């Protein structure tokens, strides 16, 4: 019991009020795209337009990663000719864009969402299933200072 109480106390200190999950949008097929609908839980926290802009940029970045075009064909053909051994030494285009996405999310968190008591989790940490937004109680920010 002591351990449970300790944990719940810690949770209150950390004050994770709730988590909101933005699911994938499959209307365009199996490409990685997240719903841009503004969740009701964030209405009091963040500006709708700001949020939608973040989601649109995120979707565009994933579209860039999965874009089928000349560059990806070249990469694919080269990989096929070398029996896919170049994947062992070369970073794929998708991986490069994923790093870009990680930087974007970090930047958005630092500039916009953390001051509002929110935290965006990179979707790759959730298997590209959801964008997890953690909502904190206001007092948790005071705790951190």
């Amino acid at each position, binding site marked *: 019991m002591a351990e449970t109480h300790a944990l719940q106390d810690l949770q209150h200190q950390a004050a994770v009020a709730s988590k909101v999950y933005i699911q994938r949008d499959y209307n*365009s*097929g199996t490409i990685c795209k997240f719903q841009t609908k503004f969740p009701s839980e964030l209405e009091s926290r963040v500006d709708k337009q700001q949020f939608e802009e973040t989601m649109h940029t995120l979707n565009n970045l994933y579209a860039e990663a999965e874009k089928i075009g000349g560059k990806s064909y070249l990469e*694919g053909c080269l990989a096929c000719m070398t029996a896919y051994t170049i994947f062992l030494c070369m970073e794929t285009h998708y991986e490069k864009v994923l790093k870009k996405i990680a930087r974007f999310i970090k930047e958005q968190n630092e500039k916009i969402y953390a001051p509002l008591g929110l935290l965006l989790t990179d979707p790759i940490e959730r298997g590209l299933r959801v964008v997890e937004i953690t909502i904190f109680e206001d007092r948790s920010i005071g705790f951190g200072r």
Partner: protein
Amino acid sequence: MNNCEYQQIDPQALSGRTPTPALPPPPAVIRGEERLKARKKWEVFPGKNRFYCGGRIIVSRQSGVLPLTIGLILVTTGLFFVFDCPFLVKHLTVFIPAIGGGLFVFVVISLLHTSFTDPGILPRATPDEAADIERQIDNSGSSSYRPPPRTKEVMINQQVVKLKYCFTCKMFRPPRTSHCSLCDNCVERFDHHCPWVGNCVGKRNYRFFYTFIVSLSFLTAFIFGCVATHLALRAQGGRGLMFALQESPARYPFTTEFWSILGLSGFHTYLVASNLTTNEDIKGSWSGKSGSEDTSNPYSYNSIITNCCSILCGPMPPSLIDRQGFVPVETATQTSSTEMEVPMLAAKETNVCAQGTIDLLETASRSPCPQTGKPQAVVTSCPDANPAVTINPALISDPAAMPSLTCGGRHLSHTTSPPDEPRQPHQHHNRHHKTRTKKSHSSKRAALHVSSLSPPTSPGPGLTGTQHQGRGSFIALP
């Protein structure tokens, strides 16, 4: 060590510990016997897979006949090089073994790529995610009957597609994703589980698989042609075909290999051109067999070239299961396999106080949300759990792991001390082990086996990785 895995956790030892790139133990070793160190995520992976080379190589536990496949290829090519090449080099050209060798290398590399690559496994939903989905299902479903519908319909390119809920992975499966029962994973763009390569064929390794069967067709066709040429030349120069056949060892299996591989390549070429998976083709999802009108494949680009290019030359998607990452010890229940120790969290929070706001938020965000999820739904799924054990429902990592809790409950019921508060089961779990380990070394090992199978019932934030041992999915006990 007379402690189970959970018992070994020492807050003082862990509070100052940062995840160092420690060498991961081999998968077959019982973790309970080792000192606690930072573990990589592949070590706690819940699916039925085996990992080698520090998680870089992934194969299905059902390795099927992969050794046979490799053996057949080696033997066939070996016979070719030994019996046909010398004759053909002398009578035809020196390029014969060069081409044969090149094709052979290509085939083997493609095969190894297919077998050892993550096929597109989807990691299981975190407990908070699963709880959120459950809540949505319950809100949307009718309250008059149970269970609520576990399908979701989406519109893809003007086609209605039903997404099914996966009870193992606790999520709605994305389109074209299927759960492989042999590997116990949801695999994206699931084609089939191939026993010949000992792995699933899915989004990430379909191009390797296709390259493998096409190059194998070329190799067998090439060998078949060389063998036929060899026999023909011998028959010409010698005393007829029958004598030539008698002179060279019989290689009739070539013909059956050749035609079956050729058939398979043809079938998969058709699938690639129409952007279908074997799974969809067999089920007849888009061929209108189900009787519904106007079902066409919503994923096809309606151009053979574009379909082929997108599947074979499209961007290589990343592996989503992050095998190389370390299991975060300060998180509660990121995945159902995350190990969690309460004293650890207490120690870690002290350290976190000293960090900046962002770090605090990030660390805290991995804690389970106490208000999410549907506690009732989770708890009632485990009616046999020891009622004296107070489990924070929101912290339960995986309702499917409840059976292992029942194991723990049953285990505890055999002990003498009354488990009237959550801490006590934890304690006399320990006592139980200490008693058993006094007996003999073999019973000590037995205790470790048992302890590793029964999860700690202390209401810590989530269950340890032992729940997977309880499911028997990952740890192979000697």
